[in-house]
């Protein structure tokens, strides 16, 4: 049994892939807490599509993938923020317009330059086994950067996420912290693209925080749980991907979906037990955050 579990480790591509998936899972779980609690579950889905446009443009212009897709994704995140705040357009509509238009730029470029379609299949559906050592380094750097930002801006981010308008009155530089979070979110999406694929990032960002939310009422515990659940989910998903021979992004997301269903079952069992014991259900477990739907 142990031999079977360790067997894939003899391959470098698996070791790289597992490390990348573990870090991407933790990173998505960590950032996902803010995404879910801000009722912006769809942003991961949208930004990954927007970044795809940037990735294609970077390829055409022969820029570095991370710089091209990163700048493009960051610009899209800022544009969504600004459109939502200035023109009072709903976040869902702004995400829908800006990110789809950006994705369309990528598709248009691909249809004009028809020589690299297969490379972008990996970006669309994820190919963690194609992760190289320098990709692992970029992911590690992004994880460390995101963790540092969250560490030093933890209180500001918590206040803004809880009540944005009031945080500003209490002296939090809301616009600046929002921009910083947009930057971290864009970086998360870009480094997760190869592992999970454009189409599947949203679930990796949303599922771990939602499962964590069902287990705790404390923000700090939710953050820690989301990181652990995200990392574990990715590791299990990677093994499944190797054993069953399916795309890594799909197996990681499906593992997460199973975890989500399991947590729902546990939650309803605990609520039933609480009812039998005569307790108010909400004293035991809280409902999902209002905007925490998987794909809004």
């Amino acid at each position, binding site marked *: 049994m142990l031999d079977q579990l360790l067997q894939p480790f003899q391959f470098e591509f698996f070791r790289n892939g597992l490390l990348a998936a573990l870090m991407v899972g933790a990173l998505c779980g960590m950032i996902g807490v803010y995404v879910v*609690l801000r009722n912006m579950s769809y942003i991961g889905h949208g930004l990954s599509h927007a970044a795809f446009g940037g990735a294609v443009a970077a390829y055409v212009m022969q820029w570095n993938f991370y710089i091209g897709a990163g700048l493009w994704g960051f610009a899209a995140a800022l544009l969504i923020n600004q459109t939502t705040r200035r023109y009072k357009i709903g976040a869902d509509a702004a995400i829908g317009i800006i990110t789809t238009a950006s994705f369309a730029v990528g598709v248009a470029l691909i249809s004009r330059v028809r020589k690299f379609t297969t490379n972008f299949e990996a970006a669309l559906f994820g190919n963690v086994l194609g992760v190289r050592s320098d990709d692992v380094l970029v992911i590690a750097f992004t994880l460390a950067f995101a963790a540092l930002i969250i*560490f*030093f801006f*933890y*209180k*500001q981010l*918590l*206040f803004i*996420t*809880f*009540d944005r*308008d*009031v*945080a*500003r*009155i*209490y*002296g*939090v530089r809301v616009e600046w912290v929002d921009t910083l979070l947009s930057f971290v979110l864009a970086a998360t999406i870009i480094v997760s693209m190869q592992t999970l694929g454009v189409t599947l990032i949203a679930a990796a960002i949303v599922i771990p925080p939602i499962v964590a*939310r069902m287990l*705790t*009422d*404390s*923000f*700090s515990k*939710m953050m820690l749980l989301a990181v652990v659940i995200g990392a574990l989910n990715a590791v299990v998903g990677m093994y499944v991907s190797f054993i069953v021979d399916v795309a890594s992004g799909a197996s990681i997301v499906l593992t997460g979906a199973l975890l989500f269903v399991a947590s729902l079952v546990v939650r309803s069992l605990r609520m039933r037990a609480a009812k039998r014991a005569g307790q108010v259900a*909400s*004293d035991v477990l*809280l*409902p*999902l*955050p*209002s905007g925490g739907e998987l794909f809004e």
Partner: protein
Amino acid sequence: MATPVVELRDVTFGYGATPVVERINLHLHHGQFAGLVGPSGAGKTTLLRLILGSLTPTHGSVFVDGMDLKGKPSPCVAYVPQVETIDWNFPVTVEQVVLMGRIRHMRRVPWPSRADKDASCEIMTRLGIADKAQRHIRDLSGGQQQRVFLARALLAQPDLLVLDEPTAGVDMKTQENILHLLAELNCTGMTILMTTHDLNSAANHLPWVFCLNRRLIAAGRPDDVFVESTLNETYRGNIVTYRTNGIIFIAEQPHHHTVRDIIPHPVPGEHDDKRRPC
């Protein structure tokens, strides 16, 4: 004369072409406890947001502690929002919310210092919610929830406390408790400005009121301001007042019709011979 805590000089603000508040001149001095009353849409919340620095006047200036805000929040002001605006499902404990009030003075690390914890514990004890510190915010009663946000504001050690409808959505007893608590805070020298829809509470608990309906209609002691002519101008309705034993009662004039003029049979089956079982 000392500089007022709040001074509005000829302030006008509108989201579009029509002003929401117009030509407002208002003073609030140190140690005053004042209420802002007016009908829905009168511009009460807009006026609060101008004082909080969340909005910039389209004309005129807002000064807090002598500083022209120009749409920037003042460090001397703390705010208690309407409880209806709070996301009660947010995963946060009472202590975590209260500690947000100290954000200007806290270290960069995610956890609070001993001094932060002591300060929040002291405020929570003063407001009677210390035993709820580790509870989720939704597990509290309406009055306790209001105290959580009041504790957060007090932890910021403000010169001016601004509250938006602190007595909305709670029962009469809790309303009374909140207003008494605010009066006690005012006795310690805290300047307080709150909005309210409850004219009777305002009449009998607040030492000073501002009547607003786009323009500032009147300002003064409730005894002087809550007269029918001023209230009718503010609410554009038929308001009647009744004074007895130093208490003012305010109500809307009956509409010269009863409920039966609108709903002919308001109680189903009330004319049946047989009484309905309970």
